[in-house]
């Protein structure tokens, strides 16, 4: 070398490069965020890499839903973990009336509700909030436009405390009310949001990391890839939350979550595996709890692919699976044995679970179908399956079960996106995958699983059964609860034995907590009421 280079200079050069590549700091990061202090803040460790926006009209991923749920209130709600009984929230009454060609629901609003900004909540805010969902047309919008058939002009404020929503007769008012409990129905402060509108985005850019709601908490800040802080809303009308702050920290590694929980740095660990939970049992200062999910892990069978087109073959495959073994051994009991297409926790759930490995019966079914040696390909995602096992271990178990009845299954593991692309194109033979309902109503599963025309699950498995599709659509519209449940029982019984599905289990969510954390009630739709938690 003709000259000497100093390592110090190199380091300085990089610093200069760093400083030059910095765009001006955005507002959120240049003011140091303040937290309420360790004693009054719940520290919640989770993998929130799916968080995209905190705007209720945009948030659709689990992490977004969890946070939005605590910052905004909806017209109607479910309490705690219950998903069957609709309770009043911002609306004190709601009457679906048959208006000839439409269902008209009249919502009467509660008096005296204020937003976090101090602005009073009126019918105009409700109309604005619901209309902007339709206008923005982001991921959750289809719940309003497709499922409920809403159009913006059919949402009206007739006086400051009354909102009338008209929906077509083809949509279900029960379903719509369930949808309204979801974060997409969060009511935003229209004055505040309008003040932050840019380029006609209905304030979406600002609401991405700010909140303008009436819920028990406000979004204090969202440091991307790092943490979200919720602070108690001083203007909240209900019981003030015990904890003045909730800090959701992005810590994707379950090992780190576990360490932090044991050390006391975390109050809640969201993504622990069943083995970790077992290891934590009995440790001082730690408690574990579980919550229901509405997820179903299932096998989809292509109903036009020979020999899967024969219903006896499908039934044989269902009959051969060792469901108990999967739940007990692979999942360590961390799941419910559910074989119907409506998960437990929703009305219309059918708890009949007749299948459990019966090799003789399965073989007999195959003989009836005239098939003795079948070869099939099972498409399996990579990574962890819900409930605490890996997809590949689950697949190996099924492969072994089916081998016993003479069905040879080859496992093909691909990345999730790849699998979905194939599945959506009806090109799978057997596909292992999961499904969660978009809103807490049985139609959120029955529709996709039975209606070929909906281009959802039934379509992907090439199952075009017009009778059951019609029955599913009719059941959605029944208003009488008893009649509706009976209708869904009939449907789910039918699909159990005739459909192209083998539902394996409904996983349970597991949480690690510090033992002083109380009031933790996980709602199967994927949220928590932080306001009820104390520590």
């Amino acid at each position, binding site marked *: 070398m003709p000259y000497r*280079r100093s*390592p110090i200079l190199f380091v300085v050069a990089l*610093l200069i490069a760093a400083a030059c590549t910095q765009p001006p700091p955005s507002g959120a990061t240049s003011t140091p965020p303040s937290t309420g202090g360790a004693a009054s803040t719940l520290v919640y460790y989770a993998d929130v890499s799916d968080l995209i926006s905190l705007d209720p009209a945009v948030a659709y991923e689990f992490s977004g839903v969890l946070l939005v749920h605590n910052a905004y209130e909806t017209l109607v709600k479910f309490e705690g973990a219950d998903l069957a009984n609709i309770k009043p929230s911002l609306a004190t009454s709601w009457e679906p009336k048959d208006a000839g060609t439409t269902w008209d629901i009249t919502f009467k609003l509660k008096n005296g509700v204020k937003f976090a900004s101090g602005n009073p909540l009126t019918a105009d805010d409700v109309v604005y909030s619901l209309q902007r969902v339709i206008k923005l047309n982001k991921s959750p919008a289809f719940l309003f436009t497709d499922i409920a058939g809403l159009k913006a002009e059919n949402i009206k404020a007739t006086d400051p405390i009354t909102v009338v929503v008209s929906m077509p007769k083809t949509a279900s008012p029960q379903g719509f009310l369930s949808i309204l409990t979801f974060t997409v129905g969060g009511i935003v402060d229209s004055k505040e949001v309008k003040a932050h509108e840019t380029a006609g985005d209905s304030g979406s850019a600002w609401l991405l990391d700010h909140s303008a709601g009436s819920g028990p908490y406000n979004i204090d800040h969202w*440091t*991307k890839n790092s943490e979200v802080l919720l602070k108690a809303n001083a203007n909240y009308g209900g019981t003030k939350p015990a904890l003045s702050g909730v800090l959701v920290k*992005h810590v994707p590694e379950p090992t*780190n979550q576990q360490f932090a929980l044991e050390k006391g740095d975390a109050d809640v660990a969201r993504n622990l595996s069943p083995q970790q939970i077992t290891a934590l049992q009995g440790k001082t200062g730690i408690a574990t709890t579980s919550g229901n999910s509405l997820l179903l892990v299932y096998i989809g069978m292509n109903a036009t692919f020979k020999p899967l087109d024969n219903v006896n073959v499908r039934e044989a495959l269902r009959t051969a699976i060792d469901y108990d073994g999967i739940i007990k051994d692979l999942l360590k009991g961390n799941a419910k044995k559910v074989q119907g297409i409506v998960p437990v926790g929703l009305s219309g759930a059918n708890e009949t679970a007749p299948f459990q490995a019966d090799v003789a019966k399965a073989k007999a079914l195959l003989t009836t179908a005239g098939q003795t040696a079948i070869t099939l390909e099972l498409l399996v995602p990579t990574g962890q399956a819900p409930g605490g096992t890996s997809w590949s271990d689950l697949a190996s178990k099924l492969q072994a079960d089916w081998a016993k009845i003479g069905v040879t299954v080859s496992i093909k593991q691909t990345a999730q996106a790849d699998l979905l692309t194939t599945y*959506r194109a009806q090109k799978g033979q057997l596909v292992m995958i999961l499904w969660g309902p978009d809103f807490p109503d049985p139609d959120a599963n029955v529709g996709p699983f039975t209606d070929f025309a909906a*281009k959802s699950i039934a379509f992907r498995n090439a199952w075009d059964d017009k009778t059951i599709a019609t029955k599913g659509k009719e059941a959605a519209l029944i208003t009488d609860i008893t009649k509706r449940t009976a209708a869904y029982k009939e449907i789910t019984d039918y699909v159990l034995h005739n459909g192209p599905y083998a539902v394996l289990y409904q996983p349970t969510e597991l949480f690690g907590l510090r033992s002083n954390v109380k009031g933790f009630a996980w709602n199967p739709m994927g949220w928590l009421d932080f306001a009820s938690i104390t520590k």
Partner: protein
Amino acid sequence: MRFLGFLLRRIVGIAAVMIGVSVITFAISHVIPADPAVAALGDHATDEQIAAFRAEYKLDRPLVEQYVTYANGILHGDLGRSIRTRRAVLDDLADSFPATLELSFTALLVSMLVGIPAGVWSAIYRGRMPDFVVRLLALAGGSIPIFWLGLIVIGLGYYQLGWFPGGGRIDTFVPPPPTRTGLYVVDSLIAGDLDALGSSLLHLVLPALTLGYFSTAVITRMTRSSMLEVLGQDYMRTARAKGLRERVIVLRHALRNALIPTVTIIGLTFGSLLSGAVLTETIFSWPGLGRYATASAVSLDFPAVLGVTLLAAIVYPLANLVVDVVYYWLDPRIQHG
């Protein structure tokens, strides 16, 4: 005039490499059999939503057109929008780059502060126990999987001993300093915030030690071997003959010359640090470029992957250029061929 020529040539060279990097990464990102729209929107998306997404991100245009749009964007400072986070890739990078920079700097600093003295010591005591120990440790450093090391380090340092924090850049309840450079240590010094300074330094220890082990090993070996070469040369004998104390000889003459090859590899080691950062950041929950790159690659978020690779590939040549420019000013007699 010569300076301008030199600068121009270097910049053109860097630009050529960057174009190559962008073309190759772009090609890789578009070879995917899976549909990035499906990856982003998931199983519940309707066909219309997928089509709208593809149109929005111009996924349905021919490849060359997509590249041209992209390249054009870069020239205007627009690196596209991340499919996963839906934000401008430039914003995502600006958020995560300082964290990785801080970690890599610290790891590099550690490597030099530990590696150079270790190499010298090892050379002086060649053939004896210190030499053997250092060489063994250096061998381990070049052979150890960094993610495994990280697990052990965090298991011991945080979980078992509780001496160090278990991840993140700063304590949960210590507010980070106001952003000037994005490097918490520097920013805390500027703001005079001792709490933040202490907390950020403490949080840097474990990840920097993990990340820096490999480069420490490389620098140790390089220093040792160049020291050994130098220690045997003629002018060393001359220096000794002049009667200076042995220690002074070592420190003054040998080290200075021995450092030259060591320093030339610092740039290379910095590149390996960025690679190592991917795994280290995952284990230590470090919100940096490495973690961002992993998340982007998993979600087939190719605008983000492109952005990360471009940034990573430009850091070293750019810094080298700045250093060379500074030296050119310092010593205009230097010939640049």
